[in-house]
């Protein structure tokens, strides 16, 4: 006498193998994207991070021009790597505003003097308040903000050469 119940373990195991095999074939995506994309930038108030550029206020992000909002820090090595590509974006006409995370004015000044300053305005987010409320996952990170202050796109990690045309395209879309 054969009992179908004795095959239940096999069925459960087959289901496990199926799910595991499916998952193995999926590309692994470790990024956690912000739930704020498509929504307005949260309210914030910041001091200026550097003496030679004005600070950042929510009104600056609603002046009708789409912008790149670059979240960075002078203590972050990938931010050094991304500096030339930010400069390239700037050279191709992208307006960039910066938010320096947990940074000191003198360190910000040293960083900008050494690696260039593509920013129109730089705010200082001393307690990562904006970073958390905008759904950032780390530094560096770049958001595309449209002229009405709506977050349109999030780029996680440092900007590399191949991302420059992509970000320019996103910026153009945000202006339509």
């Amino acid at each position: 006498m054969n009992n179908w119940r004795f095959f239940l373990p096999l069925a459960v195991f087959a289901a496990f193998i199926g799910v595991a095999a499916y998952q193995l074939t999926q590309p692994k995506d470790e990024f956690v994207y912000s739930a704020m994309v498509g929504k307005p930038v949260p309210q914030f108030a910041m001091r200026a991070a550097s003496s030679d550029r004005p600070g950042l206020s929510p009104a600056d992000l609603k002046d009708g021009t789409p912008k790149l909002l670059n979240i960075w820090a002078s203590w972050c090595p990938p931010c050094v790597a991304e500096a030339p590509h930010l400069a390239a974006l700037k050279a191709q006409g992208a307006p960039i505003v910066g938010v320096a995370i947990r940074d000191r004015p003198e360190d910000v000044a040293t960083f900008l003097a050494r690696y260039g300053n593509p920013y129109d305005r730089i705010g200082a987010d001393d307690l990562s308040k904006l970073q958390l409320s905008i759904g950032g996952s780390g530094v560096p990170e770049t958001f595309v903000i449209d002229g009405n202050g709506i977050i349109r796109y999030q780029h996680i990690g440092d900007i590399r050469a191949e991302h420059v045309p992509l970000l320019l395209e996103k910026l153009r879309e945000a202006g339509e």
Partner: protein
Amino acid sequence: MIAELGLAALWLAAALAALQLVAGFLAVRRAEGDMAALVRPAAIVQGALCAFSFAMLVWLFARTDLSVKLVATNSHSLKPLVYKLSGAWGNHEGSMLLWVTVMSAAGALIAGVERRLPERTMHATLAAQGFVALGFYAFLLFSSNPFERLPLPALEGNGLNPLLQDIGLAFHPPTLYLGYVGLSVAFSFAVGALLTRAVTPDFARAMRPWVLGAWVFLTIGITAGSYWAYYELGWGGWWFWDPVENASLMPWLAATALLHSVTVLAARDALRAWTIMLGVVAFSMSMVGTFLVRSGILTSVHAFAVDPKRGSFILVLLAIYIGGALAVFGLRAGTVAEGERFAPVSREGALVVNNVMLSAILGVVLLGTLYPLLTEAMGVRVSVGPPYFNSAGAIFVVPMLLVMAAGPLLRWRSDRLARVRGPLVVAALVALTVLAAVLILAAPGILPLIGLALGAGLLVASLLPLRGRSLRRLPLATWGMVIAHFGIGVTLIGISSESAFSEERLAALEVGDSAEVGPWRVTLQAVTPVAGPNWNAIEGVMLASYGGGAPVRLAPQARSFWTPPQETTESALETRWNGQLYAVLGKAADGQRWQVRLWWKPFVTLIWLGGLLIALGGVLALLGRVAHDLRRRTVTRKAASRRAELQP
């Protein structure tokens, strides 16, 4: 040359595993002498060749032969010798070679000594063992060759991850492997018995030492791993419900259930199909664990040797072995005759409850570990953490512990609860007293409270089987049970006390400042640089005084290794009979001050002490069983020779 010798031995061992499989299969099919005579020798030679191959790898690491890729990527000429040697298995390829070495050594051992099972069952068992080994040989030889040479020898090696340069961790993986692989023997026995329809008490007795041995190693491995994570990672925690930890806990849970059901089968010839099922499940858990850890399919804090390609390979092996075994189970389990019957209130009844509860806990852990995988397939990301594991696990742990208190007092086959009521009331009173005392003195959460009361009750209940018996004539196996159950109580008290009464203090101290945590007052005396063989560090010298008593010196370090560059924290521990003070030196806070983290953890050491007691119980039971088997074997042999003398 050494590497080539090792590789050649590995290929030969693989060929012998194939021979073991084919000869065993033919012997089971046709029970002919020629092929059957090959099975045991093949297993023994295979074990010897594999051990030789592993010895070659260790030798390469001892010499730091940088023309071998594995050595160059995982070792460094400046490393202390013990970590050079442990580097041989502190990586994917080497650990897989260790895995097959242990597996083939176990195969060789059963081929050499196991004589009480029908020869046909033994052939099926060894064929299964050869089949499983063959898959792992293929894995090693085709996708993870440990002996691969570099086209050009490297000038210097990359070094071993500094977190792994620790004496505890040098021996933690091999211990766990012995456990995992010991379960492969139980698996082969189960498949062999199922194929030849010989699920008998003899089969259970043959399998039991392997289950016990594997279980002891798993217990030690988990205990050591937990203590290592506790003092080396510097987070003050001892268990994180991380997938890698769960991967070692799940086989342990299955092995614990198997250990108890195999006892029922050996003593009473009951629970036949269930024991076979557990034998398959226990080894599947080892393989599922290996798969989860190595494939990188789950995100873990200690992701180890992650590679999706290797993951696919292990998944295929898993599908073949476990799928195959479960298919055979489905076909054959119906034909395994039902075992002896027993009353619900009996030793067997209690052991069945224990098995059901352990399986439920296993299900809870398995579900929690795999849940992110399931939901991710549907596009939802979740993470499952302690709130789920602790509360869902407790639902089954509590009834299991209650039954565990009473079970050993019951008689086999049928008993009345009224007969054991007296001693159990004593244990219950102890538990209630502790419950009341803890409620009055402190008000911890509900789980620690239950844990403390149950733990205290268990300490008493676990000793009850000793009452009225001559301690000197008590069988070793019974001592083993008593000590292991006592150890469960000890661990439970440690866990509950740690979660109920721990105190934590995070302070920024200037040299000369003090901080208080629990009954301790800790003063930062100095911060000095120190240098080791392949690291340098800053060391915080602290004086800690317990309740105003004589101060003891603590010296936690923040170390920077340079091969490879990495920072680690070396916590400092001060152990008293009633707990541990745990100190970690952090980064320099603004200028003159240093971040210092302090914990006072009352009775935390009981967690690992209990773990060791559990393992000791297993060792005693194992010794008792093996000694008994050996005596019985001598008696049988003498009786046989006597009979031969009497019949000329």
